[in-house]
């Protein structure tokens, strides 16, 4: 398990809720567009967790996620002068991340298995998790490991579009309209994809969600 407290401090102020820009963001953006790397660093700190998290849940591999997240911000820096502010910086960066991830997944020949071994301490003691596991078997550690594997395997079985909406909505907590903006589709499509993705997941994880 990896306590995230040290990283939380490093990434303060934390990413804004659902990507709502803070009042100083336009100023930071302007400075970054003028070539100020310190200002861009601040923007990276604000959104790195969300960008990394999205890519990680899509790829299920830390190394790939780290690399793609870096590429996302490098790309954002090089394209920053062309950013006109038609959407928020958050949406724009997310779009770069999502496109990079989808391209990566398409090009990845051999799908590697998950290395999701890092529920943090809070996650392991989550009441739902404890209840789910203790109800099923006394061998808690083995059951925890099995749950993680099944959850991740089920997610990886989803199509990329379905996995993306589940990741952005159910894991990252973004609202439908924001996801629609990121995925360049309408909110109805997002709702529909989410519904069918959840149905599939519910069937695959029926042992845990009865």
């Amino acid at each position, binding site marked *: 398990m*990896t*306590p*995230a407290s*040290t*990283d939380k401090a*490093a*990434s303060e102020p934390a990413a804004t809720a659902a990507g709502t820009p803070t009042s100083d963001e336009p100023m930071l953006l302007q400075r970054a567009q003028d070539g100020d*790397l310190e200002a861009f*660093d601040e923007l*990276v*700190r604000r959104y*790195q*967790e969300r960008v*990394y*998290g999205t890519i*990680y*849940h899509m790829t299920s591999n*830390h190394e790939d*996620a*780290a690399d793609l*997240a*870096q590429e996302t911000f*490098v790309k*954002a820096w*090089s*394209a920053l002068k*062309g950013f006109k502010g038609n959407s928020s910086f958050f949406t*724009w960066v997310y*779009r770069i991340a999502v*496109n*990079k991830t989808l391209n990566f997944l398409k090009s990845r020949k051999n799908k590697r298995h998950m290395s*999701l071994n*890092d*529920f*943090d301490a*809070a*996650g*392991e003691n*989550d009441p*739902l*998790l404890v209840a*789910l596991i203790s109800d099923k078997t006394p061998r808690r550690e083995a059951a925890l490991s099995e749950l993680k594997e099944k*959850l991740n395997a089920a997610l990886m079985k989803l199509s990329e579009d379905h996995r993306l909406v589940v990741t952005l909505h*159910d*894991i*990252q907590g973004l609202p439908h309209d924001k996801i629609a903006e990121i995925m*360049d589709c309408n909110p*109805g499509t997002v*709702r*529909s994809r989410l*519904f*069918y993705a*959840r*149905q599939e*997941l*519910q069937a695959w*994880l029926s042992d*845990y*969600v*009865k």
Partner: protein
Amino acid sequence: MDPAPENFEKLQKLLALKRHEQPPPGFFARFPSQVRARIEGPHREQPTSWWHRLAESLDARPMLAGAYGLAVGGILLLGVNLLVKPEPAPGFANQPQAGKEAVPPLTLSNAGILLASTNLPPPPSNGSPPGFLVNPGTGDDRTQRQMMPASLTNR
């Protein structure tokens, strides 16, 4: 139309557990400097060709990429249409255009007139090809000489 509501509460709680998954300790503390190193580093990947640069510039603009795709597709279709023009209707094939001299179509009857205007011998009346074409080397030597360049026939 939205899909029918269904109870996904437990599933959502299960999925929310994934929020607790974290990268190795210190990852986010190091991340901005790693990004910066890639931005400033000498080994920063540069797009090598115009194609890579175009792909890079379209990376964050799927609508623009789609528009480019449509435009290129349209130009290609237009090009193909111009190259493969449909055959004119039979009724219009022999009609002379205004201001232009009509060119009669080549038929067996006027092929002889065309040949007569050259130095070549007329075709045999039975319609068979000249012997030298059927059996090269055994045919009419005079015909072959007529078709040879002067520098070779004067030897």
